[in-house]
Each structure stands twice: as structure tokens, then as C-alpha cells.
């Protein structure tokens, strides 16, 4: 994967949008720590930011075509990308509306339910696609060499989607079980788990390079 891939138009907006929103969330958290923003406003803003993340990533996901590199039936891949993109974008809109207008004690659990439902629908779409896509080693041909750009884009989107879904699922757990005493410990373990699973995903995605 090269840096050139990062600046190609379909990928640029979701990647930099995601990083920008992460930066905003970090800034809001720091501002809360310094006393510039109260706790309730911080929770509302973080909820809005996560909704915007889902909206941005969901909107651009079908454009980046992350499933193209898997091969198999292109029609099924296009349909799956569209359904995942739409599901995520609608979930993002629902989150933004909830955190913009609903009372905070209702917005958090409702957005968790929306989030968990979204993750289940997306998982079901991916499982359906995986069942219909044959997994086979692809010989190195001219077509494979020409699709290296697609492979780089697909890999970048895989990292982005993994990071986003980890944040999304962590937020769903925190919003739903906010008042439970074990929530802080769970989120700490989830943050640590992110590092391990990210490294494992990196190894899997680069498997062919590692074994040469």
C-alpha cells in the first residue's frame, strides 16, 4: 500500500473525514478535562461525532468499492456495498438526529440500539456475500497486476472500516450500559484489544508479502 492511494479522490474524503472527526472528539475530551465544556455537552458532541463518522463512511463506502478485491460475483459485491453504505449512512443520520434533538438520557440508549442493529445487518450482509464468494488462490496474471491499485484501496478501506466499527461498537456498549460499574473496565479492555486485533488484521492482509 502506498501513500499515493491515500490521496485518490474516493478514498481521500472518508479517510481524512474520519481522522478529522477523531481529532475533534479528542479536542472535545481535552476541553472537558480542562473545564471548558461540561460533561453533558461532551457526551452529546461525542455522540454527534460518531453519527457523522457513520454518515461519512457509509456515504463513501460504495464509491471506494472495498469488496472488489475479493473477486467472485461483482454484482453481489456491488449490491452488498450499496446495502452496507445505505445502512451505515441512515444509522449515522439517526444518531445525529437523536443527539441533536432528543434528551441525552434517551439519545444514548436509542443510538446504541440503532448501532447494534446496524452492526448486525452489516454482519449478515457480509456473511451472505462470503457464502456466495468462492475463496481461491488467484494466479499472478496481468489482470491481478493491473488491480494492485484496487488492492491498495481495498486494504486502506479495511483498516478504516475496522477502526470505525471498533469505535462504533465501543460507543454502543458505553451508551447502553453507561451507569454500570464495569463499563470503564470493559472500555479499557476494548481499547487494548483494538491494538492486538489491528496488528492481527495487518498480518492477515499482508499474509502474501510476509510468506514470500
Amino acid at each position, binding site marked *: 500500500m502506498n501513500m499515493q492511494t491515500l490521496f485518490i479522490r*474516493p478514498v481521500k474524503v472518508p479517510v481524512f473525514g474520519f481522522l478529522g472527526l477523531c481529532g475533534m472528539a479528542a479536542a472535545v475530551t481535552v476541553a472537558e478535562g480542562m473545564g471548558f465544556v461540561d460533561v453533558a455537552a461532551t457526551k452529546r458532541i461525542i455522540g454527534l461525532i460518531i453519527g457523522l463518522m457513520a454518515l461519512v463512511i457509509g456515504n463513501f463506502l*460504495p464509491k471506494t468499492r472495498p469488496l472488489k478485491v475479493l473477486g467472485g460475483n*461483482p454484482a453481489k459485491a456491488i449490491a452488498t456495498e450499496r446495502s452496507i*453504505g*445505505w445502512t451505515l449512512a441512515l444509522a449515522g443520520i439517526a444518531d445525529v438526529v437523536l443527539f441533536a434533538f432528543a434528551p441525552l438520557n434517551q439519545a444514548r440508549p436509542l443510538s446504541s440500539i440503532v448501532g447494534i442493529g446496524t452492526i448486525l445487518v452489516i454482519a449478515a450482509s457480509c456473511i451472505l456475500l462470503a457464502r456466495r464468494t468462492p475463496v481461491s488462490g488467484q494466479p499472478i496474471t496481468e489482470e491481478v497486476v493491473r488491480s494492485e491499485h484496487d488492492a491498495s484501496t481495498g486494504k486502506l478501506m479495511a483498516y478504516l472500516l475496522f477502526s470505525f466499527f471498533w469505535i462504533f461498537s465501543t460507543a454502543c456498549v458505553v451508551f447502553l450500559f453507561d451507569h454500570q460499574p464495569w463499563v470503564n473496565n470493559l472500555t479499557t479492555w476494548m481499547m487494548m484489544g483494538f491494538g492486538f486485533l489491528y496488528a492481527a488484521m495487518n498480518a492477515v492482509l499482508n499474509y502474501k508479502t510476509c510468506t514470500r
Partner: protein
Amino acid sequence: MIFKALSDPIRRRVLELLRERPMSAGELADHFSVSKPAMSAHFAILREAGLVTSKKHGKSVVYDLQMSVLEDALLGFAQRFGWDLQERKQAKPNRLKREAFNS
């Protein structure tokens, strides 16, 4: 650029066809009764708008869809209301003819 790309019914139909699967320029052109240069112009507009990508496969060029959710929604709106506009444009000369006949 997006609105220009979606304003033509032929280009909208091309996008609908590409939703099913990637297709070569020849396969797409077979669905329409327009000349090859005209179809090439349509493909160029769709490419410039970033709604499709093209790749050379031997002697043919294969087009693949590249639309965001927002562009997909705009296509849906354009299909619905653009079609109505086409009907109104066709109905207007008929209405004028009827009025001229009645008077």
C-alpha cells in the same frame, strides 16, 4: 458536474445497468440507439463526474460503477422527477395543438 451527469436519461440508464455488473462500452452501447461517438461523450461525462471508472481489458474498455450513497439518492430523485419532466415536455406541444384546434 454530478447534476449535469444525472440530467440525461441515457446516462441515468447507463448507471442503472452498471448497478447489475461492470460492462464493456460495447455492451452498454447495445442498449441504446445512439451513435458510438455520442455514447463515448456520455461515458466521458460520467467519468469526469466520478460516477464510473474505466479500465482497458484487451481491446475493450470496461466500465464499473463508483457512486456514493448521496449520488445514488440523487440518481433515484432524477429518475423519478426527470422522467416526469420528460413527459411534461412532450405533453406541452400536444396541449398547444389541442388549444389551437379548439379555437
